[in-house]
């Protein structure tokens, strides 16, 4: 059984490599998680021309160019990789290959117009490394740093496209203690600057608002236009861990009519009633359980479970880019600490798309066929993605890392490893 399955997967890979995409693909006997928070069912999935054509308990009579017997293995929508800078950072400390952050060269305190999508490189080795682990998309971020506003980004699909951006413009705002210490020495400076910037929008001042200090512009015309547009159609992701900072973000968002998402949220459980009342989603790293700073004295492992119990929409991020593939381990730990399993699955699949305005990412007819067949429980460290399918195409499941493995796995190297070219 297992060999047959492998053969079929291999055959699929060969077909993919030799010809253009197969027009249709049938996955049978999957333990299918549709991507919402309902329990899985044993189902078949028919994919045609990149879209899910049918999902039903028995499609074995359907004709398809390719067949994969999932043999009871879990099948999910391709996962969300969290808030990352994938495609913006080839190597963390090779700064000329990192484009996620605006440094001090550019004058001015606030540049929401800084758009990291302009720097996105889908051919980065990070993308296949992440994709073959079952991940289909990420929220591409202007890296949180020492400015009040880091810039803008959006969802991006890991389909290899140069402009595979989706959903709303996301503006990244920092209101935590660390960045506050860099901006005027106080987190209150963030609110001072934000208040000034957003007031300038409502009062319709002609030219950019100027700070008297050093005559640096707080925000220029383009930046103001970005904020105007994001207020109408975008989302503001506030980086905040301390309970009081989260409440300030909620109050500010209400005052200025912003769609807000909290990222960090280590102490979100303390203000969960207020978060629930405002309907604000929270993105957490469910492994945070240490007081890493004085902003996170309340970090605890059951944060996710507590927020869910309070009816707060929850997403995960790991803070990693190169190792963004760790995110399902993060979600698994949330489950191990009380979060219902299917809620974690939804948070890893459909919910991020829903919150950040992307196309629906469920296993349902008419939707794009980005799905993953797993060797076992997708949230456990004891299983891995067996086959990733993007746009109905079988991913070749290769990355720079699989090629390194192919080179070094053989015990004999002949003339040398350089001659083993996968």
């Amino acid at each position: 059984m297992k060999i047959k399955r492998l053969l079929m997967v291999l055959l699929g890979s060969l077909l993919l490599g030799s010809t253009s995409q197969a027009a249709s693909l049938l996955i049978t006997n999957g333990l299918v998680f549709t991507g919402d928070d309902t329990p899985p069912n044993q189902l078949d999935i028919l994919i045609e021309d990149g879209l899910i054509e049918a999902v039903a308990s028995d499609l074995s009579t359907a004709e398809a160019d390719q067949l994969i017997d999932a043999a009871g293995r879990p099948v999910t929508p391709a996962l969300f990789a969290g808030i990352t800078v994938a495609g913006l950072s080839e190597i963390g400390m090779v700064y000329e290959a990192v484009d996620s952050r605006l440094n001090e060269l550019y004058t001015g305190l606030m540049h929401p117009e800084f758009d990291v999508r302009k720097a996105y490189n889908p051919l980065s080795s990070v993308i296949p490394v992440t994709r073959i682990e079952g991940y289909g998309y990420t929220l591409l971020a202007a890296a949180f740093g020492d400015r009040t506003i880091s810039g803008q980004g959006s969802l991006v699909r890991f389909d290899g496209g140069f402009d595979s951006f989706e959903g709303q413009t996301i503006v990244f705002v920092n209101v935590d203690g660390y960045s506050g210490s860099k901006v005027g020495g106080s987190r209150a400076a963030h609110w001072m600057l934000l208040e000034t910037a957003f007031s300038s929008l409502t009062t319709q001042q002609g030219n950019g608002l100027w700070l008297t200090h050093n005559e640096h512009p707080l925000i220029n015309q383009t930046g103001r236009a970005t904020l105007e547009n994001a207020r109408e159609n975008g989302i503001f992701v506030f980086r905040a861990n301390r309970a009081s900072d989260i409440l300030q973000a909620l109050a500010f968002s209400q005052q200025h009519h912003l769609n807000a998402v909290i990222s960090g949220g280590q102490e979100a459980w303390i203000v969960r009633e207020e978060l629930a009342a405002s309907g604000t989603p929270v993105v957490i790293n469910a492994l945070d359980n240490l007081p890493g700073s004085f902003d996170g004295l309340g970090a605890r492992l059951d944060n996710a479970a507590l927020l869910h119990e309070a009816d707060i929409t929850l997403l995960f991020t790991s803070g990693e880019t190169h190792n963004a593939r760790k995110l399902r381990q993060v979600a698994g730990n949330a489950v191990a600490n009380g979060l219902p399993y299917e809620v974690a699955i939804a948070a890893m699949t459909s919910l991020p798309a829903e919150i950040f305005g992307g196309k629906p990412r469920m296993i349902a007819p008419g939707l794009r066929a980005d799905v993953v067949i797993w060797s076992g429980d997708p949230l456990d460290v004891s299983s891995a993605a067996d086959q990733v399918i993007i746009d109905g195409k079988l991913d070749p499941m290769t990355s720079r890392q699989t090629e390194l493995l192919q080179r070094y796995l053989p015990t004999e190297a002949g003339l040398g490893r350089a001659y083993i070219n996968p």
Partner: protein
Amino acid sequence: MRHLICVLVALLASLAARAQPEAFPSTYVAPAGQPVLFKNATILTGNGRRLDETDLYVAEGRIQWVGKGEIVSDATEVDASDRWITPGLIDVHSHLGVYPSPGVAAHSDGNEATAPVTAEVWAEHSVWPQDPGFSRALAGGVTAMQILPGSANLFGGRGVTLKNVPSISYQGMKFPGAPHGLKMACGENPKRVYGGRTQAPSTRMGNVAAYRSAWIRAQRYQADWDRYNQAVKDAAAADDSSGASVASALLTNTPPRRNLELDTLAGALRGDILVHMHCYRADEMLTILDMAKEFGYRVGTFHHGVEAYKIADELAENGVCGALWADWWGFKIEAYDGIQENIALVDRPAGGCAIVHSDSDEGIQRLNQEAAKAMLRGNRAGLDIPPERAIRWITYNAAKSLGVHEQTGSIESGKMADMVLWNQDPFSVYAKPMQVYIDGVLRYEENNPSLSPQSDFELGQLIGAKR
């Protein structure tokens, strides 16, 4: 009077000839633990065996027997049916206490980044025992760990092996009898830190030149002591019963001036201090192995070794362990070739010594999960690694790297009762330690506040926050 002089001379001679009295000795003494009988457990012994439905008896701080044997009448009985027992987990690479939580600048005590060779510093003098990370690691099943200096320097200083027991002092945590480690670093970090100050080293060749210069000084220092000790010894052997020759030897041979930096380096040359070498690239590790041959010392363990899989055979042949991550890569160019099969490939050759290390206050809490990921990747690559083999990476092999494998790191009668009782197979994201024992003392129990230690720092925080 003459007799007294003789005694004094002999005493002086013995003091001069011997190592200094142990500095900053361990004050850790395990309290008496209750004898415990674990019934019907699945036991991963830590040194390669799996025992199903097996009993295990612990008393007087030691594992008394595995399988069958006698017990005292008042032993506590733990039904371990469907539960798993492993040795206590050991992390060979931690910065708990030296880079503690909260990570404020005033607590950043892990790198004496003021000179590339600081073999004279000891990590234990930076350890803040109130780091909340210790208790979190305990809840993850960690019973011992090595606290290392950082990697800014070529020679970063001495590491210390601690038992994971709460204490006011690091001396109260110090693993009795464990050798010191010497932290060294290859590659980018030292050359970046000092090159950035237009100071040596600024290149990898500068790194190697500086190591070698330091080893040459250490060899000379050792030779000076050897010569002095020999002279005193010779004089004692030729004793004319008056002690005059010893006295004369002591007078004519001034003892070399003690030097803290060279004490450490000479200790590493002698093998009394175990060398822990931060190194990513395969070619650099081979350079280091050659250098070790040049100066006649052993590299105990390469840490991080993101490219260790490229030289797994050479590591095994040289008896060098690789303390590695399951999946970290790409954060700098010397970590660009990381693959998830690294640990499994280093484990593959006969004599291979693979270790999962954390270098992280998060990772140390989940060494079992990190090992699970590495085991999975090995199995998917066709290497056939069962749990009883993979558990060695976080128990026995780690103990060997730290030189404490005679005392701990495996479930064998006579060894320290450092153990974890798991709710299930530990190689899962859902596995949790239910109980953690150190020297037979129950130090942590899940959902039991009276057995969940908290550091002083955590007391009284967030008063008024609703729970």
